[in-house]
């Protein structure tokens, strides 16, 4: 009896928190039929916003995957970094988890905004950071930075450095050793980290809103467009874009489950 109650309660919470909102979004997206959904999604501002989100996701993911792997390698393997420095850097990696994205965005505005010394200098050189794409990419990078590092570091620690040393003893230099020995062991963790990064890029709101200024046809992303549509009571269109984003994320998470099973195999 008690057990049934608990199961029922769990299903209820799961449904209220996850399932019903998705159904509501789908219903909302289609309340003017397929054409309503399609119109909401193919408005010029929606297309532009989705494009912006796409660009940010691609750039942030590529940069994060590359530097995430590099930083993990240094933090785990480098002997020339002091142990105390490593520990400090290791805890700094988690900073974006601890700091609200809005504050992260604010830090970028305060550091690189048009009124600051650095931002002003770059502005005079014709490079806008804040209220432009570069700032939005930086904000997204800030938010997603730990994701790859936190996936890759434990695996590097677990496999240890002996396989790499064995490769060195057989004549392999750093590059060959990385691609033939280290990479095959960490690749599924990198994939896992990349998927998490993409999903987070698609959904990022706070940091990007602060940095972008949410300028229509310029710095508006898919999430900030949904926000604006809701403000304007344009609910069908908001739901359409939201549904597209949710579908993208769900597909990614399914892919991630598959990647996770691969990670366990190798």
């Amino acid at each position, binding site marked *: 009896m008690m057990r049934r109650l608990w199961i029922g309660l769990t299903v209820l919470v799961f449904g209220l928190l996850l399932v019903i909102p998705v159904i509501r979004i789908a219903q909302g997206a289609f309340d003017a039929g397929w054409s309503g959904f399609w119109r909401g999604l193919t408005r010029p501002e929606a297309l532009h916003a989705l494009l912006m989100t796409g660009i940010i996701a691609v750039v942030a993911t590529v940069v994060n995957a590359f530097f995430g792997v590099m930083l993990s390698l240094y933090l785990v393997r480098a002997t020339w970094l002091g142990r105390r420095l490593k520990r400090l850097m290791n805890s700094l990696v988690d900073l974006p988890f601890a700091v609200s994205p809005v504050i992260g965005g604010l830090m970028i505005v305060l550091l690189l905004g048009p009124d600051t010394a650095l931002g002003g200098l770059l502005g005079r050189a014709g490079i806008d950071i804040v209220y432009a794409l570069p700032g939005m990419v930086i904000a997204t990078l800030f938010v997603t930075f730990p994701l790859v590092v936190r996936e890759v570091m434990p695996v590097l620690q677990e496999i*240890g450095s*002996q*396989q790499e*040393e*064995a*490769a*060195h*003893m*057989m*004549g*392999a*230099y750093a590059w*060959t050793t990385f691609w*033939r*020995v280290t990479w*095959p*062991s960490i690749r599924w963790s990198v994939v896992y980290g990349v998927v998490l990064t993409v999903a987070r890029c698609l959904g990022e709101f706070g940091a990007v809103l602060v940095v972008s200024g949410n300028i229509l046809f310029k710095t508006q992303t898919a999430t900030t467009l949904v926000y604006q549509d809701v403000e304007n009571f344009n609910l069908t269109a908001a739901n359409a874009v939201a549904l597209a984003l949710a579908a993208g994320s769900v597909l990614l998470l399914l892919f991630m489950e598959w990647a996770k099973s691969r990670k366990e195999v*190798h």
Partner: protein
Amino acid sequence: MHVEVRGLNKKFGTFQAVKDVSFHIAKGQLIGLLGPSGGGKTSILRMLAGLETPDEGDIVFHGQRVNDLPPQERGIGFVFQNYALFKHMTVAENIAFGLEVKKWPKAKIKARVAELVELTGLKGFESRYPHQLSGGQRQRVAFARALAPEPQLLLLDEPFAAIDAKIRHELRSWLREMIDRLGITSIFVTHDQDEAIEVADEIMIINQGRLEQKGSPWEIYKDPQTPFVAGFIGESTIVEDIASLRGFADTLTWPGTKGLIRPEYIEVGKEHEFPLLSATETGRVKHIHFRGSEWLVEVEIGAIKLVTYRSLEKEVLHPGDAVHVLVHRAYLFNDNDSWVMENKLKEDPMPVHI
């Protein structure tokens, strides 16, 4: 390869791992680095390999200083303690790795891999992955992989530590045979003295970063040069008051001298078992333990406790029995010196010829 090491020093932080170690190794020898864990054996091996940089000292191969040569260029095969096999590669791919890196032609690689698979008895396992192999097989893959690029020196870090006791014995003699056949200079690290004595041509005893003694196993057993070596090799009991034992009264000449006595230096038995009773002490059996092929006897002579073995063929002793104990020799040491002394009373001072 002829290996020479001069004045090697290595510190990790404030911990002095290796202290002023010098030695040389002739071509084709199999050397065991023996000592307690954390004594610096592995650090010496890793510096030879180039995986650690010495703080001071020279490493010379074939008369050429190699300190500044990276591990990739030293031409050394290294077998790691846990084998460090590439777990995403098959046995054949693991063995071929070093050859591919060195850009050998494909046909030659294939032939060399086949040769090593044959040599190490891994035929039929070429396309298995490391996790599908037993411990002994993994060890042989690691060995084949290290040998593939035809190194001049083979280094093995605790090669048998991760293998269960029975297979360890087989692998030891297999390795000894293999290295004899290939004639490759080899150095292995171990903390197991039986392993070192059984396998090595020469043993180097390493303790607290220092090289205590280098020599053949028999030399080290027979003539230990430091109290540490004497205590580390074989079994032994330390006797503080050695002068009180019959036959060793002369040791009073050197105050502060202690004696180290091995079980095999001692005979224990009933009165009629000794032709020369004057050299024996009288004692009492404290415990006896059956050790499979012999008795382990604990005997007390006054306050001195000694341990020895006794053949199963002889009369069985019982706890509490009064016995005679003959101590053939003792290894004596004090703060300045150490030497072996024979029992002075063993030679009959007044032989009676009939």
